[in-house]
């Protein structure tokens, strides 16, 4: 097409150039891959907005545009900055200072252009941003028998997500303690309780669910639940064990 004299690239030169490039970006890529790995185990106190996909999926879906941040009417969402312990540019909130206000129309989710915040989430009560855990029982006032109850009172799902369970006060011997008890099947992880905790550092903290929850072995069954399902005990009511009488008494 054109008669412009082309500088001939010899095969040797091509191979040299190609390996230069490949090695160079190989080094760079190795470093980046390591960084990518670390960015997945981020600061557990940095919580994702409502409807966020599982962390790995979220990081692959979030386009770091900040539309959710600008949609939040309470300005509680922030974008991770360079060198912060979270994937750069992804949104988070800190429960202790800026908890989620649980808007019914979920404007952050509605603003997300990529689906990193699940468009299927229509009821904010179904959000699972994390799970509140009363993690410091030694400093929690209620555990000492006082009636602080603040975390219970501020909970948007009071008496469902957090209940007060009465137990005997072992210290005094004749009083009750009211233990704030979080129920994972209701708690949205909004962080209101952590924000409100009256201690210098919160005794109740919202953690990522993977961190906060245990998991039963797949084979494990609760006997009382199986009994309820079956309608009766799965074994005979009274176990007739063989009598073991010492030989000498026989």
């Amino acid at each position, binding site marked *: 097409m054109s008669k412009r004299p082309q500088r001939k690239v010899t095969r040797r030169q091509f191979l040299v150039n190609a390996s230069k490039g490949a090695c160079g970006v190989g080094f760079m890529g190795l470093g980046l891959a390591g960084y990518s790995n670390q960015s997945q185990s981020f600061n557990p106190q940095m919580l994702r907005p409502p409807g966020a996909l599982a962390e790995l999926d979220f990081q692959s879906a979030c386009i770091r545009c900040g539309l959710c941040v600008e949609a939040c009417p309470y300005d509680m969402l922030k974008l991770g900055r360079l060198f912060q312990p979270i994937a750069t540019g992804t949104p988070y909130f800190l429960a202790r200072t800026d908890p989620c206000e649980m808007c019914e129309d979920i404007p952050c989710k509605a603003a997300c252009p*990529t*689906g990193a915040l699940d468009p299927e989430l229509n009821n904010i009560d179904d959000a699972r941003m994390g799970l509140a855990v009363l993690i410091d029982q030694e400093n929690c006032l209620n555990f000492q028998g006082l009636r602080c109850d603040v975390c219970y009172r501020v909970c948007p799902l009071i008496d469902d997500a957090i209940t007060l369970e009465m137990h005997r006060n072992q210290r005094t011997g004749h009083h009750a303690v009211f233990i704030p008890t979080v129920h994972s099947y209701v708690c949205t992880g909004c962080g209101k309780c952590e924000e409100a905790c009256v201690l210098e550092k919160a005794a109740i903290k919202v953690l990522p669910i993977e961190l906060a929850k245990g998991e039963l072995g797949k084979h494990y069954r609760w006997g009382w639940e199986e009994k309820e399902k079956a309608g009766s005990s799965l074994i005979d009511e009274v176990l007739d064990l063989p009598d073991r009488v010492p030989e000498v008494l026989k």
Partner: protein
Amino acid sequence: MKNNQSLGTAAISKKGWLLANRFLILRRIVQVTILTLFLLGPLAGIWIIKGNLSSSLLLGVVPFTDPFMLFQSMASGHLPLFQAFLGALIVVLFYGLVGGRVFCSWVCPVNLLTDAAAWCRRKLNLRKEKVISRQWRYWILAMVMILPLFTGVMSWELVNPVSAFNRGLFFGMGLGWVLFLMIFLFDLLAVENGWCGHLCPMGAFYSLINRTSLMKVSAVKRDKCTDCSDCFDVCPEPAILKGPVYGKKHEIGPLVKDLTCTNCGRCVDVCAENVFQITTVLSGKNSLAKGGEIK
């Protein structure tokens, strides 16, 4: 060797300061306007456009999505919602018409930083020398697109200075300014046009969209060239001008067809003889069909 200090003075004395800087001024106006529109929301509560250059929503209706970002997202295994695709399509169509790297010189805020470095370099009369290959950006682009297949996340976006810079301006910079200082110093002291012209995979990506562009610079009146080399000194991708300006004897057309041209128009500005024009495919005489080869 010619002193860089004289760059553009011939054009200014012949055409006047305004004409000799019109594309530069236009570009700065466009860049600052775009930044202002994005900043009006968070700073003044006037929401004309929301988001940032990665993805945004104009007047609450028109979505824009950075296709470079979207490709990374898909490479890491996510299928985005329709809105993101639509936004990317609009962006690709726009840059496909006006020139892919129009993003680099007219929109990207990092350009302000690297142009400043290039300007300082000329003022300090630092020598032009070829330090690293301009092909690096394509290697890096390949890495950026391949890495997510293995890591499952958008690895490049953890460090991408281009998205981090505009995001930082609108949402808070944090320690990010260290990175941007590094880019400035790299461009100033290490490699001329080092970031934008050699390394940036985003520019490499957008240069690929350049292929279909209807708007290109053309050395229409190259017969009038006085060999002053001002255009070469000011061009961020100087090698691409060689063919169109001097290629007549090799039957190379006057059209700057190289994909890395950013359509910044600085060559048009600084040429005292008005050799260059920004032409469209529609202006018959300089049509693409008569242009030179694609490098």
